[in-house]
């Protein structure tokens, strides 16, 4: 790995947000491919962030700052990315289901999936189920990932399964769920393809789902 990519990974890990843009420009100026910057710089950084979060060396504030740092770099790098070069890594539509506005967990999962090189369509929070299904269809995504922290909104996840089945989207499109109110049993019960305990598990699961498609 080149020095500048190692530095970029370090910048993400340490959350040195102001250094993200100049360093990314420097990497591009050195002729490093945008895809390389993402996979060998930013992804490596986010992977370390994930490990530190798992070991409780990092808590949410540090993870959020690292994610912001990664996004600052992506702002520079993504426009230079060759169309189609990331295609194999999978497309994910992600959001918090209608009725819930707790989106920090969703944002962390989004950052981790972005860090893993996936293309993310983030619909935000409090999103009506039919909008999720429509977006999944129009973008031809591989995964629909939804979260909720609240219990009344669990019904929305069941509705996603129903609409995905009715629309003949399954098994091509996989569904995964997460968030405080969800559980592995609940995922099985409604017919979701996977459940993630936290953002770290979410990345592993999403990668598996895409590998096995």
């Amino acid at each position, binding site marked *: 790995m080149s020095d500048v990519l190692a530095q970029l990974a370090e910048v993400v890990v340490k959350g040195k947000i102001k250094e993200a843009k100049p360093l990314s420009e420097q990497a591009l100026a050195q002729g490093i491919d945008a895809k390389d910057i993402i996979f060998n710089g930013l992804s490596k950084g986010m992977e370390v962030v994930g490990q530190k979060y798992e070991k*409780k060396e990092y*808590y*949410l*504030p540090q993870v959020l700052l690292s994610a*912001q740092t990664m996004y600052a770099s992506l702002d520079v790098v993504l426009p230079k990315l060759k169309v189609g070069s990331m295609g194999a890594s999978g497309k994910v539509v992600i959001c918090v289901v209608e009725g819930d506005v707790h989106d*920090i967990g969703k944002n962390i999962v989004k950052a981790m999936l972005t860090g893993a090189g996936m293309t993310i369509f983030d619909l935000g929070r409090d999103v009506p189920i039919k909008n999720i299904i429509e977006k999944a269809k129009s973008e031809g995504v591989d995964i629909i990932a939804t979260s909720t922290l609240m219990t*009344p909104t669990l019904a929305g996840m069941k509705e996603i399964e129903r609409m995905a089945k009715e629309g003949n989207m399954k098994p091509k499109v996989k569904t995964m769920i997460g968030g*405080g109110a969800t559980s592995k049993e*609940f995922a099985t019960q409604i017919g979701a393809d996977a459940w993630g305990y936290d953002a770290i598990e979410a990345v592993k699961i999403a990668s598996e789902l895409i590998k096995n498609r």
Partner: protein
Amino acid sequence: MSNNMTPRDRVLAALARKKLDRPPAVCFTQIATIDAMEAVGVYWPDAHVDPHRMAELSAAPNKVWGVECARLPFCLTVEAEVMGCRVDLGKMDRTPMVKAHSCDENTIPDDIPIGALYKGRIPAVVEGVRIAKQKYSKELPIVAGTTGPLTIAGHMVGTENLLLWIITNPEAVHKALKVATKMEKAYVEALAKAGADVIVMSDPSAGTDMLSPEMFDEYAKPYIKECFSNPGDAKTVLHICGDTTVLLDHMVATGVSGLSIEEKVQPEKAVDIVNGRAALVGNIGVVRPLLQGTPEDVRLDALRVKNSGFNLVAPGCGLAARVPLVNLQAMVKAVKG
């Protein structure tokens, strides 16, 4: 202590960590379900704004499933609304939510609004407590639910922003916390004066899913202490969601009478760690078993919590409106024997 105690006596004795023949079965977090609403003909969202309906619904769960307290209000958005956040009051089966924040890094107010205690739904809740006190407190303890300072501050500026600023702009975090604390302290005093027996402050944003224990000590503990510095005769309880195993010592250090925690903490372990320094309230899972499990699942979990030595047996977090009645009845029955 005998079986002739009123629920109020029993709950207050349990919070004082007195020896009892059995712990009370309570719900110190959101208590109203559809069955309780139907029993008294009072529904959300009306009950969030009308003090008479609020008081009536607060005691309905006692009638319907025998829980040993009245508890109000039914959300965590009262303070945030007074601080200028836009709140959607929800539906019959959906709790109110903060829809829009009130300020950013540069516009955090120095003080609470003038006449804050007369704004938003604060007068309704204070009056609701007063009515509940008159109508029910011979039998039932009146439990008032409030929001912790970190959660209020998060509502004001956005929780994600607040967490990020802990690293990038700690001064802004402290500024938001100071004004949130001022709001909460005044509100706690008003609720105590109105006759609340117990004030439960929920601070979900101060949990270990959000902060390290060290951050809790800097950004939550001193402010929680300040909010509860003048509770009058009311007992104080701190509720924090998630796995609070490593946080229990820090929660005890806030000086509250009781700690209300979720099922992600092993009950035996919680009793072991807290070791009589505060009353323990909890910690039956609200999703599993209460919402999605069977009465038998609930009975087993309730017995485990009771036998572990919790001072008060309760759901570990706020009830969803559609928690089945049979499960709530099973919880109370298991505790009362």
